[in-house]
């Protein structure tokens, strides 16, 4: 398979303006601290992590709604970070983004017909006489009735809005879709059908998905590879395996998966374990930690391995441990992986 998208050492800082007494202070808040990965054509790459770990920032950087502080994005082998916005507009056809809130991503004062017309005119491939037939074809792809065309976004249900948004994007015939929590704000009754629709479209058009979500269960079911992020860094990339639970090795991934299983699986069963997650929320994240494992202050494995000094002095690189499996940890849980990482 060919890499359609490559990200090299992407960094993004935000600035917080604070006032201390009379003085103003600018505090750097790193949202992404050097992220590199590749996406292959036709795959679904799931990105999971907690809120504030930089998932959404990453998505917005990929479509250049935000400008990166440093690093490169290579789209089909071409660097798109350096070019000006006007030049990048050509590439926007290729890479498109689906936003979290289905209502907020449509202009509330425009009806659906106008939304479509605008986008189809943008492609420049369709003559004005054929707009209507093109719109009907698009609506058919997402299983919508033509009656929605005369309505305004607030008159539609959340699922319909989501479908309209998808159809609007499909008019541009993109190759990569960045799905930023596509089902998180939908009701549980509609979720399933939207996920089905997304998978169906992916198969039919051979699209590449970057599926950003904090719903680990959905991601595990859907994606080919999963990328786990913590505090703006990638800690693990692995292929989900439904048979065994032991295919991820980073301590943070374990905590995440355990919590997800605990919260979501069963009705009625609960074994409280209050001390388990405390460490995650008490400690403050270091603003910049170039020579330290970012997860070390919260890490079980760190204590379990006898508090080795490597964790506090050397930043673990993202190591290749197996086929399509990378871990950024000095002491991953799987012994075999650890041996390989040192070999």
């Amino acid at each position, binding site marked *: 398979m060919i890499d359609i998208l490559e990200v090299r050492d992407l960094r993004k800082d935000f600035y917080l303006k604070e006032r201390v007494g009379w003085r103003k202070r600018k505090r750097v808040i790193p949202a992404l601290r050097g992220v590199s990965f590749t996406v292959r054509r036709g795959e679904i790459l799931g990105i999971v992590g*907690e*809120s*504030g770990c930089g998932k959404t920032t990453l998505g917005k950087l990929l479509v250049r709604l935000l400008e990166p502080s440093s690093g490169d994005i290579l789209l089909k082998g071409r660097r798109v970070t350096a070019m000006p916005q006007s030049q990048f507009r050509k590439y926007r056809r290729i890479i498109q983004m689906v936003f979290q809130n289905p209502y907020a991503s449509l202009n509330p004062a425009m009806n659906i017909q106008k939304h479509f017309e605008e986008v189809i005119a943008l492609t420049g491939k369709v003559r004005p006489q054929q707009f209507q037939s093109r719109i009907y074809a698009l609506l058919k792809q997402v299983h919508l009735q033509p009656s929605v065309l005369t309505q305004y976004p607030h008159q539609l*249900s959340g699922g319909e809005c989501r479908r309209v948004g998808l159809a609007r994007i499909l008019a541009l015939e993109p190759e990569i879709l960045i799905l930023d929590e596509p089902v998180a704000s939908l*009701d*549980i*009754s*509609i*979720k*399933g*059908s939207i*996920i*089905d629709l997304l998978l169906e479209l992916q198969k039919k058009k051979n699209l590449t998905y970057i599926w950003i979500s*904090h719903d*680990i269960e*959905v991601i595990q079911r859907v994606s080919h590879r999963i990328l786990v992020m913590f505090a703006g860094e990638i800690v693990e990339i692995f292929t989900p395996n439904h048979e065994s639970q032991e295919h991820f090795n980073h301590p943070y991934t374990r*905590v*995440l998966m355990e*919590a*997800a299983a*605990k*919260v*979501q*699986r*069963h*009705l*009625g*069963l*609960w074994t*409280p*374990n*209050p001390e*388990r*997650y*405390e460490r*995650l*929320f*008490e400690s403050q994240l270091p603003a910049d930690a170039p020579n330290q494992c970012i997860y070390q202050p919260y890490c079980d494995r760190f204590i379990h391995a006898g508090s080795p000094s490597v964790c506090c002095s050397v930043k673990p690189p993202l190591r290749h441990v197996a086929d399509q499996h990378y871990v950024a940890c000095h002491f991953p849980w799987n012994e075999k992986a650890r041996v390989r990482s040192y070999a």
Partner: protein
Amino acid sequence: MKPLLEVENLTVAIQRQNQLLYPAYRVQFEVEVGEFVGIVGESGSGKTVTILSLLGLENFYPGVIGGQVRFRFRDGEVSILDRLDDFVRFQNGMPHKNVIGWRRSIHRISRNLLGRKVAIILQDSQKTLNPFLKIHQHLREMILHNVETARQPQNPPGRPLSLMSFVRRQQPAFDTPVSPVALDAVQEEAIRLLRRVQFREPMRVMNAYPHELSGGMCQRISIALALATRPEFLVLDEPTTGLDVTLQASLTDLLFEIRQRESMSGIVISHDLPFISRITDRVVVMFSGEIWEIGPVKEIMHPEFPWKHPYTRFLLQSATSHQGARNGVFVPRLEQRKRKGCILRAECPLYRQVKKAAFRKKCDTRWPEFFQVYPRHHIRCWAFENEGSVK
């Protein structure tokens, strides 16, 4: 023993372009002493609106237009909506409400309840804390509330309106001078509360503004604020929505523990069925402003339990396996209550399966009633009319 909270025929309306929609329509349930009741439903089913509007926290027109709400606390009974008729009059079927007078009236009652006897934990706590005050100022206020309520006799709730009432209703400010000894006591109490919600370094948190803390920390602080006055009744409004999984797990732990240790009753509102199933005793299922099923949590949440409303079944299926979509979609909506018959029949799988004319006719023409299928388990559906004999 009489129930602690009784809600009767609570109707909440909202006006949109000369038509009335009902986020809650004739809602009726009760909460026993020491019991937690969960309200489940999708967004737009009216679960939050029901609870907030009966405590005077809603901000739309016309709001509550009918019903009765009664709290029976240890030291007396409080009726909340008993003066509602003075402010609402119906003209051609449309309600006209004197909002300003109503607001003044319900604020007077709810001010003595909210934060004292009834504590509410709203969703998205980071935004519900006052961004201009530090955490210790929040805590201090709530702790001093506790002292006040213990010291002062309660205002009689149904006092008549007077022009000068705005002068009299001023409460003593929470920073009225307190002796140094008492101040120390307040600080100690604050630290105790923060430790209670598992903060390891309470002093560091106390001097922070809400925006300096993470969402999970703010959520726990609002739990501490709710516990500060030792309320008899606790309302949790979607406490886990929008939080990360690890945070959800830790919060569920905390609430589970509080639920076990303190003797409180309460309501939990959520669309997160696993969470509800862990923390409550009874469950109310709501859809488009209506209660469709009330029953013990073990019966409603058990996937094999035979007597189940079709909507509840659908909800359980879609929560556990994402398979619900294929069985028919119940679209949440606000209803005008003008059609005859059951509003769910277009989507109802039971209605579609059964071809018997008599059964269908009832669904088409008559509004379903509650039928008891088990002790304390009621279902609003014509299909359970004959199963009602099981007792």
